[in-house]
């Protein structure tokens, strides 16, 4: 069984060690196709993103076609096939956040960061992501940076929030 400590220490692991952890994850999930989404979640936690090599590794070890792995992970916006920046900025565009101005926040972020949704800034500091309802409707429009949630954001607040990070 994979331990919490192992997942938390992936950043200091070699590639080979990461693959070993991923294999342990797949064993924990019995290598069942039904558990593919959970396995992809863990794989993204280990590698930071899901490049083609990781996809093929999962496909081969689970004995399912590459195409199926790719099909599942490209369907969900949470998964990324490109490396993420140091900070992942997520804007919720669920109904509540949308009607309270989430879209304006996205547009302003695109302008400030100079990258599109789903992309990462050239300096690899920020990735921009749109999410569909994160269950924080009372805080609308909500924004997340890595695991931290920011409430009632508006375009004017962005410079200050991002500035604190850089």
């Amino acid at each position, binding site marked *: 069984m994979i331990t919490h400590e192992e997942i938390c220490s992936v950043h200091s692991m070699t590639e080979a060690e990461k693959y070993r952890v991923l294999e342990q994850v797949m064993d924990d999930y019995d290598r069942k196709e039904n558990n593919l989404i959970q396995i992809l979640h863990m794989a993204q936690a280990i590698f930071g993103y899901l490049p*083609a090599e990781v*996809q*093929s590794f999962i*496909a*081969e070890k689970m004995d*399912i*076609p*590459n*195409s*199926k*792995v*790719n*099909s599942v992970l*490209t*369907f969900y916006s949470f998964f990324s*096939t490109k490396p993420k920046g140091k900070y992942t900025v997520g804007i919720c565009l669920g109904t509540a956040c949308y009607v309270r101005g989430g879209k304006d926040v996205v547009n302003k972020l695109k302008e400030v960061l100079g990258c599109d949704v789903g992309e990462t800034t050239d300096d690899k500091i920020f990735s921009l992501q749109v999410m569909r309802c994160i269950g924080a409707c009372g805080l609308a429009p909500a924004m997340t940076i890595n695991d931290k949630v920011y409430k009632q954001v508006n375009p004017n607040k962005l410079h200050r929030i991002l500035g604190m990070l850089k």
Partner: protein
Amino acid sequence: MSLVTLSINDKTIQAEEGTTIFEAAKQNNILIPHFCYLENVHQMGSCRICVVEVDGARNLMASCVTEVREGMVVHTNTSKVRKVRKVLYELILSDHPKNCLGCHRNQNCELQDLGEQIQIDGFRFEGVKSKDIVDSTSASIVRDSSKCILCRRCVTVCNEIQGVGVMNAHHRGFATFIGPSEDESLGHSICTNCGQCIVVCPVGALKEKDSTQLVWDALLDKSKTVIVQTAPAVRVALGEKFGFEPGTLVTGKMATSLRELGFNYVFDTNFAADLTILEEGSEFLKRVTETFTTAEPAVLPMITSCSPGWIKYVEHQYPNHLGHLSSCKSPHMMLGALIKTYFAEKINIDPKDIFVVSVMPCTAKKFEITRPEMESNGVRDVDAVLTTRELARMIKDAGIDFAQLPDSEFDSPLGLSSGAADIFGTTGGVMEAAIRTVYELVTGRELPMEALHVQPLVGLKQVKTADLKIENPVEAYSFLDGVTVKVAVTSGLKGASKLMEEIRLGTSPYHFIEVMGCPGGCISGGGQPRPVDDSVRMKRMQAIYREDEGKQLRKSHQNKDVMALYKDFLGHPLGHLSHELLHTTYVKRDKN
């Protein structure tokens, strides 16, 4: 199974429990307009065109996935249903290029047919367009994603029926596209080139890689001797493209049309099918003899190798079990090699000036001819493969009135074939043909079965098996006295994977296995006319058996021209020249 009583359009009807509304309606002559539905293959309600009103239900229901219930009241033709159906159709069209006049599926397109059926007159929506990607990296299949309407029939066929899983949906919304994973192209994937996706595609998103231009160029090149050969399954399906009923035999018209197109010689792949039986049958007997009489048993079961989709599948999925495959090339490759050696010598023409065209029910053959192994003395064995559909297009393009053509015969000496060769086109046929010959070689007696048919191997069942007990063999095979030879036959790659798993686990009880890559065998190969369902398969299969039974010559080893070929040229089965020209090797490929 209990019966359920319900009402559809105020008619009280009964249907078996578990039947869908769509099927129940169809059984009662109510045809609900539908689109992504494909009998026995694809019922997932992705297009929603077949929606109906059900009393008490909040929303319209997709009839292809909703099962009948006791007391259900269904309406298929209310104004609400009609309106929604049209909107759904227009929404599908909003993401379609609508360039029908320039599309190869014009007038042979299920999307057009549906529009006509539900009386579309103009379209109101213009949507964001799907990605416009044309993938022509495969030797067999071309995918044009701009025409794809995301019905997912190809996904179902590739994953559920064939068990290959190269076709899947990626991304979502307008960004959705169908294909191998986003970093891969068909030509560099585990695609087996079986072409079953093409057969079920309702629109022009999937088609075979065109070879007609290549063939026209050869036909019009005066320096080339252009020689054509036709596979057994072509003659039972080609007529469908000219208005004949499925299962109409058009062997004679086909030969005439090929001459009218300008081919210099019209040969028959069936000749090489008889030859295959002698080579493959001998190979099987050699393996059996080694196993029963020496300390070093040969690899058994032996598996047939006529189907190039199956070959690529096994190379990807079971690379450590390639020794089970017969080393025989597929029949048309054998004939190509012979045309460019034996026949070239006979007519005194440099093989480099000969252009060999194979007309096949198959798209995987287009890939097969590109394999590096498929050449003899530095000359490619076959230069172009046309599908049955492509040949029909050429005949139409040339202005040949196919239906009115008189019959003619194949040319000699590579045109004569036995009934055993005819049945190569259907699942079970190669095995039956082999048994007719091998049984006689081993026992010295004719196969003691009615009309020479091995009945358990006939039909569309996914896996078929038969036991043959050998009694009183000739002296050379006395070690087989009392032995029960076990054979299995499967068609469609999912069935093949079941038999391969037994082999992998070491539990396979069989000595000899026939695999055809497409469900039903070559009669419903990826290059055959559309539409194909089980009733069409059965009609084509019956036509194949009619062709067989109509011949005096029913056994491959009695084909006098094949025997003459051995006497004059090859020597004997599995001899040195056979090894060089008629046998091949396989390669291990990656699983992903």
